[in-house]
């Protein structure tokens, strides 16, 4: 393959971007902390190593909780991959996740079904709710040309306040001090794979299955191809006869369904009652993850792991040193900027492309001179 070098280059470029982001983080830590080395230790290796007097050992429990934290963000990352691939800057993932979680929770409380079926129904309902809510910005975009970015951002707030209304005035369990719903029925709760309190539920397996499904959808189906083509060149897609409007709506509805599904799986797996009092933040994490994964579903779990790892590291750092956990936002912002920068290290890429082209030309010439047919 002639572009193997480009792949290696892209990998190295990603590593360079992440290293730069972490370097920015380190600078901030050195400026702000009295114990920068302790802080860095917890940030970088704390998530998987427990420091004991007898020596450092791999911390399995902590590692499993990192995997558990990936469950909702894999879904939101996939959602963003699909939507951004079609060049739809729909930022409504937050609202769709919260709505999916809420709908799933309600069915988990008030519906009476056998376990197995119950979870499936709850999660599917969450997905449908997420998909329906995304229809609004999608249709407004296609039919009226209204910016999906602005409408979806506004939708997030609408969804949040409407949910809070129902949570407070309709479904609240008044016997509790805090505002929350009644507990989910046992039949609706998504169990842990190994019952050890890490919250690593079967939702993780479902998330990985969806990684494969979405990857196949995006790269092996007509619709996936249409979504990617519209993202690359909408006019071209239009002239070649694709139903651009339908595909744009489809991409956002799929994004909404994935978000809603992630929300309901997270709620039914992690909690025993609906507790979210604000937008959960997974939608924004999903954007970071999609950027790290370059909108490729297959890379989403790795990106999600990286972010979950960093998040855990930041929390540990805040617990065991004097650096606040909001460091994660600064790291994320730096990753955003460098990783998404097309021209970052572009000179080297240019050099590789030129070299490849020259080699291809040379190959063609020799092939032509031998009278062969080359591809």
């Amino acid at each position: 393959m002639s572009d193997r070098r480009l792949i290696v280059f892209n990998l190295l470029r990603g590593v360079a971007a992440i290293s730069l982001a972490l370097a920015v983080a380190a600078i901030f830590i050195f400026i702000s902390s009295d114990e920068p080395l302790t802080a860095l230790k917890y940030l970088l290796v704390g998530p998987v190593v427990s420091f004991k007097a007898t020596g450092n050992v791999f911390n399995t429990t902590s590692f499993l909780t990192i995997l558990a934290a990936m469950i909702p963000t894999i879904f939101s990352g996939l959602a963003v991959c699909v939507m951004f691939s079609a060049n739809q800057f729909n930022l409504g993932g937050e609202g769709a996740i919260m709505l999916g979680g809420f709908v799933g929770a309600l069915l988990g409380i008030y519906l009476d079904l056998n376990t197995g079926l119950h979870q499936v129904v709850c999660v599917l309902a969450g997905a449908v709710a997420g998909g329906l809510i995304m229809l609004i910005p999608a249709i407004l975009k296609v039919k009226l040309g209204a910016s999906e970015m602005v409408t979806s951002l506004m939708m997030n707030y609408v969804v949040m306040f409407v949910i809070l209304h129902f949570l407070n005035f309709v479904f609240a369990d008044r016997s509790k001090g805090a505002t929350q719903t009644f507990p989910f029925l046992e039949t609706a709760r998504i169990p842990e794979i190994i019952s050890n309190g890490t919250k690593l539920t079967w939702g993780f397996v479902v998330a990985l299955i969806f990684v494969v499904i979405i990857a196949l959808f995006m790269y092996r189906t007509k619709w996936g191809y249409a979504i990617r083509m519209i993202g690359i060149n909408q006019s071209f897609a239009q002239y070649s006869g694709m139903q651009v409007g339908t595909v744009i709506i489809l991409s956002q509805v799929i994004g909404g369904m994935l978000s809603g599904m992630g929300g309901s799986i997270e709620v039914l797996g992690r909690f025993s009652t609906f507790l979210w009092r604000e937008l959960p933040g997974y939608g924004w994490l999903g954007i970071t993850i999609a950027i790290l994964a370059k909108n490729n579903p297959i890379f989403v779990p790795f990106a999600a792991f990286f972010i979950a790892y960093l998040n855990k590291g930041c929390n540990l750092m805040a617990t065991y040193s004097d650096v606040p956990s909001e460091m994660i936002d600064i790291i994320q912002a730096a990753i955003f900027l460098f990783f998404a920068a097309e021209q970052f290290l572009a000179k080297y890429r240019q050099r590789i492309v030129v070299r490849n082209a020259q080699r291809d030309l040379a190959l063609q010439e020799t092939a032509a001179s031998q009278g062969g047919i080359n591809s």
Partner: protein
Amino acid sequence: MIGDLLLSIFNSDFLYSVIRITAPILFAALGAVIAEKAGVVNIGLEGIMMISALFGVLFGYWTQSWLVGVIGALVIGVLLALLIGFFAFELKTDIILGGIAVNMLGAGGTIFLLDMFTGMRGNTGALVTRELLIPTVDIPLIQSIPYLGQVLSGHSVLTYLAFLLVWLIWVVLYKTPLGLNIRAVGENPNAATSIGVSVQKIQYIAIGLSGAMAGLGGAFMSMYYSQGWNSGMVAGRGFIALAATAMGRGEPVGTMLSSLLFGLAQALRTKVSGMQGVSSYLVSVIPYLVTIIGLVLYAISIKNKLKKRHAVTEGAE
């Protein structure tokens, strides 16, 4: 209940609060106007407001001068906008992602920075004293007109500046060479290049100005409106500003009117949520719902206009 509501809407206190609430949205929306005229999408307004708001308080506290605080907030706003610009124009980061990155800095980075500078968590507590608030002004003459005086007089310096900027930005955009260049770059960068205008330079200027506006909006929020900085302070105003700009067709005056509409919705929310038997949560939806409805109406009107134009040209053929 409706009667009470109507009465309180025409109350001078209420209209005064509409103007007060509109100001920060207007600042950010004017920033979006300038950016959009140059063909630049600045969705980082929200984050810029947050960070500027924080630094407004900090600079004010360090120098014990509200004016330095406001200027500091403005400068920080410009720097952040130029940062987005640098990544977007030089390194070709998608400008929307650049904006989101700044919004992240605004959400969590501010909490981190506050902790780093002062050791405080989540809000600036007692850093903002009465002397450090942006002062209010009574306008002579107008002040003494009954009703009108109560609505229009006694606002902060920055409130008046916001409305003054509507006019100023209109002048800059339509009566100066810079404005001509900005509009040319936004409408047809190739044409602008062909007559020797540096597209990049103009876009830097435009995004820098938009950052300055958002910076002032941030200063208004922390140094006047909420009298101190806290982490939930801006609450989507930067996003609402984008919507206001879209609804105001990207023109200064139209944007002012739509900003006032959102100010009204926001003020209404405060008013109604104080009433009995009304869910404060559902009322909180009003400004955002109004934004969506406004966007839809605007989009429909554009669509009809295009249709009409299309019909006319087809008739002519």
